[in-house]
C-alpha cells in the first residue's frame, strides 16, 4: 500500500528524550497531506513503544519500526483525515 508514495519528510530526532520525539513528529505530521510518509530517526529506546502508541491513538499507520546500530527508524503515513 506504500509503493506509490515515497517519504516526503525526514526528521532527525537522535539524542532527544521523551516527550520531544513524539511532539516534533506530531507537529511535522500536521503539515503532511493524506497518504504522505514521514521518516523519523531516534535514539530514545522509549520511542519504540511511544511511536506505536501514538500511531494507534491518532490513527496514523506506523508502517515501519526498525532498529540499526542503536538508531530507531520509524515510518508513519498520514491518515486520510487529521487535524
Amino acid at each position: 500500500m506504500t509503493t506509490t508514495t515515497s517519504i516526503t519528510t525526514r526528521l532527525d530526532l537522535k539524542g532527544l528524550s521523551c516527550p520531544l520525539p513524539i511532539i516534533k513528529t506530531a507537529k511535522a505530521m500536521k503539515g503532511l497531506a493524506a497518504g504522505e510518509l514521514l521518516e523519523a530517526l531516534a535514539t530514545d529506546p522509549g520511542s519504540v513503544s511511544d511511536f506505536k502508541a501514538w500511531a494507534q491513538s491518532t490513527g496514523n499507520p506506523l508502517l515501519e519500526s526498525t532498529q540499526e546500530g542503536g538508531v530507531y527508524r520509524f515510518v508513519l503515513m498520514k491518515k486520510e483525515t487529521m487535524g
Partner: protein
Amino acid sequence: MSVDMIDRQFAEQLAAKKPPVTNKLVIFAWSGELDRIWPTLILATTGAAMGKETTVFFTFWGLFPLVKNQVRITGENWMQKMLSMLNRGGDEHLKLSKMNFAGAGPAMMKSLAEDHHVASPHELLEMAKELGVHLIPCQMTMDLMGLKREDLIDGLEEPAGATKALADAEGAITLFI
C-alpha cells in the same frame, strides 16, 4: 430469529461495550515543585501531540511556576508578600520536593536534563502554548495568594473556577499532580 441476526446482534453488543477513545486530557496542577510540574508539562504536551484536547488547571502551589521569572515579590498585604518571599515563583526558580539541598539539587537535575536533551519546564510550557494546550489559572488561588494577572506569564487563558475545571474534565482522562 435467524442465526445470522443473532450473530449480528451479538457483534453489535460487543462493539457497543468497547470503551470509547478518550479525546480529552485534564490535569490539575496542584504542585509547584520542579519534579512535579515537569511530568505535568510532559504529559500535557504529549496529550496535545496525540491530538487530545488538553487542559491544565493550575491551582494552589501549581500557580507559582506561572509567575514571570523576573517578578520577585507578589501580593498586596504582608502575608501574601511573605509567601512570595519564601516561595519564589517562575519556571526557572523551582525547587525539588526532595533532595533540594538549597538549590543544588535542581541545578544538578537541570544539568542532567541538558545532557540528556530533556526539554526544561520553561521550554515545555512554551511548547504547550504552541500546541494549543489550555493553560488555566485558578481564580480563587490567585486572589488568596495575591497573584495578579500581570504577575503571570502570557499565553494563559482566562482565570477560572472549579466548576469550569470540572466541566472541562467531563469525559476526559483526569490527573491530579
